[in-house]
């Protein structure tokens, strides 16, 4: 057998015992064996099929998850938007508010109308309206309530309950006032319950409550005029500040003195004269600040 064939057979582990003896007698047998034996040092990094398969399974799983996650996430996003829109239009309470020197009239779901005076806000739940006619008021508003279930006006000071009527509720820091222009209104305030009839006026100023009459058919501010009847001067000033969005500083003036009269909302110079001349006061103006003092 030729040398080359012998080596080739050896390389393929095909030598029988007789051939193996012949191979061992080759002159370069030692060299060949040494090369062959040293090859193990060059062995490839160990490869664990199971470990590697687990890795691949994980990657494939993640990719597949992404496959269904993608369309699903877009569906979820669309649903979220639809839900969000639905929520903001229906579930949430509606809030309407006015800034200083701003008035706004709005219609409630049952066509009752509400006029908000300056710096006031009204909150109601349109969704619940059929079950519960209830609004929350901060500030002052004139209500024209349609006939129907009991209508509640919640304020920080008290609860006003009516059936179908026209009235104003005024809940300011200095004054809580309810005037009934038509029908009847029940006021729950300070632990007592008072029933107001047409033309009745309930006021609560500085810890004393009182009931008077009015001959007006609706609040004067609806016609851009604020009217006062024997009101502390501080109440008048506060209203003025709200209607014109300015600050008024009183210099050595008795804020408790009573004022009867009115001021208009669309001309500050005339309005200022209306509240100062009757009391013999002088006014001076700087930017957003007005100072009043005795003559």
């Amino acid at each position, binding site marked *: 057998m030729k040398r*080359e064939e012998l*080596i*080739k057979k050896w*390389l*393929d*582990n095909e030598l029988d015992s007789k051939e193996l003896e012949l191979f061992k007698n080759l002159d*370069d047998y030692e*060299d*060949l064996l*040494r*090369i*062959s034996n*040293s*090859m*193990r*040092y*060059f*062995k*490839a*990094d160990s*490869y664990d*099929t199971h470990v*590697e*398969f687990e*890795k*691949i399974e994980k*990657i*494939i799983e993640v*990719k597949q998850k992404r496959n269904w996650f993608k369309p699903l996430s877009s569906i979820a996003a669309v649903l979220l938007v639809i839900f969000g829109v639905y929520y903001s239009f229906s579930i949430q309470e509606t809030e309407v508010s006015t800034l200083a020197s701003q008035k706004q009239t709005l219609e409630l779901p049952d066509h009752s109308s509400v006029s908000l005076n300056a710096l006031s806000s009204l909150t109601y739940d349109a969704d619940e309206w059929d079950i519960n006619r209830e609004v929350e008021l901060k500030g002052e508003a004139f209500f024209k309530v349609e006939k129907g279930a009991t209508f509640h006006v919640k304020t920080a000071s008290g609860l006003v309950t009516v059936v179908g009527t026209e009235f104003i509720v005024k809940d300011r820091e200095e004054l809580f006032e309810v005037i009934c222009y038509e029908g009847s209104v029940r006021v729950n305030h300070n632990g007592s319950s008072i029933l107001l009839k047409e033309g009745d006026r309930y006021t609560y100023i500085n810890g004393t409550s009182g009931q008077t009459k009015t001959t007006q058919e609706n609040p004067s501010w609806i016609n851009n005029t604020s009217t006062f009847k024997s009101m502390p001067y501080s109440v008048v000033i506060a209203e003025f500040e709200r209607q014109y969005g300015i600050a008024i500083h009183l210099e050595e003036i008795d804020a408790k003195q009573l004022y009867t009269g009115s001021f208009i909302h669309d001309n500050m110079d005339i309005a200022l004269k209306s509240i100062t001349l009757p009391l013999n006061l002088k006014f001076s103006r700087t930017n957003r600040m007005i100072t009043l003092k005795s003559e």
Partner: protein
Amino acid sequence: MSKSLHKNICDKVLFSNFFKKHSEDLHSFLYYKFGNHLNPKDKVQEAFIKVWENCKNISPDKAKNYVFTVGNNLMLNEVKHQKVVLKFQQEKPTSHTNESPEFLLEEHEYSLKLQKAISNLTEAQRVAFLLNRIEGKKHKEIAQLLNISTKAVEKRIYGALRKLKEEIKEL
């Protein structure tokens, strides 16, 4: 057998068996061909994932060729015909050894020579020779793996051995 059962290899069990049958071979093939510095394990992983992703278009009898071609191409994308130097790992001498320091040093020097000689083999020779000597594969198996004839494998391995012997003598 699988030909008649499956049109493609999208079946999980089929894919798993396919992986277990060929992944290690592909790894050795890529390792001996391109060396260890290009992460043959990652390329094996990538190649098999490609198979899975395109499983609909791959019939079971074509899958092996496909995954070897993909693995090879993935490597070629990175390699720029640089010389492949395989690292070697000699057994570390234990705290007590019967071999003399001279012997160990000589062994190490021999391995360095061999390393250089291996890197001078042609790519075809190296892959066939190492699969044969290190992985203990028969000529026929290598022929199947590389899609060449048994004769060609024989020639490559024998040629490699002769070249190594000559180079080591010279060095």
